[in-house]
């Protein structure tokens, strides 16, 4: 059952990363990879929120491991950073790597704190 829930979450999360990345790039033409930052921050916020409540194993598998896990990515982030460096866009590369880490940690903390505050 857990396997099926992870699979279902990932089957939604991975295509949503691709579609979000496209949508962000289509609206915002920039050398900086805003699309990947968007999914990574959104996924960290959501997973942080789930971590704040004693969620059932089924919810963790579906939304956490499956959906958030497949929505967010380190492989895309690292390759973008490598390519930005190769392109000579050093500051974009540094901002992409460090900015993602700081924004992701901030989003996870915010999601956790918001749900804790709402739960009282």
């Amino acid at each position, binding site marked *: 059952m857990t396997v099926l829930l992870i699979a279902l979450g990932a089957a939604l999360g*991975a295509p949503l990363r691709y579609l979000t990345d*496209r949508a962000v790039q289509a609206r915002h033409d920039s050398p900086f990879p805003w699309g990947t930052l968007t999914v990574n921050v959104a996924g*960290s916020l959501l997973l942080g929120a789930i971590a704040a409540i004693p969620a059932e194993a089924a919810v963790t598998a579906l939304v956490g491991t499956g959906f958030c896990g497949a929505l967010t990515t380190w492989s895309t982030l690292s390759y973008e950073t490598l390519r930005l460096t190769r392109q000579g866009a050093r500051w974009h590369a540094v901002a992409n790597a460090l900015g993602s880490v700081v924004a992701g940690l901030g989003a996870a903390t915010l999601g956790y704190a918001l749900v804790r505050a709402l739960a009282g």
Partner: protein
Amino acid sequence: MPVLVGRHVTPPEFRVDPDVDLHVPADRGELAAHPTAVLGTIAAGGVLGALARAGVQAAFPHAPTGFPWATWGVNVTGCLLIGALMAVLTTRPTGPLVRPFLGVGVLGGFTTFSAYAVDAQRAVAAGAVGTALAYLAATLVGALLAVWAGDAATGRLLARARRRPEPTGEGR
């Protein structure tokens, strides 16, 4: 066959984003041309990658204050493999669904940023600030070294394969 020594086949546009980069003409058109195939392939790859990640995480669990070695290993391995994969895809022609399946799906689903951020946040909340900082830095450094190594090693292998004379060819 032309001998390309130390020369890359220049893609039409320089790709930054391996998931999808609208500066690359083929990426721009792929969704409109084959929406079901592209999204279905990404979903299938994502399922395989996520299940593999979940398997590794279940095999090597960690305490809230402990170092999340499983996720660290998954992310660094995935970065090594995306470097290798994209070195192949940017130098030789492949099928239109290879990048969506292996890059966007399998490796995108295998690696995870949300668990990275939340595991670090949990370690901070549990009072293990040192572990959190070490984990944040070790993943960042490991991921970047791995993607560079995967790209460089594969690029070198491909260049060596191109230099090797064809066994049945007429030389140049």
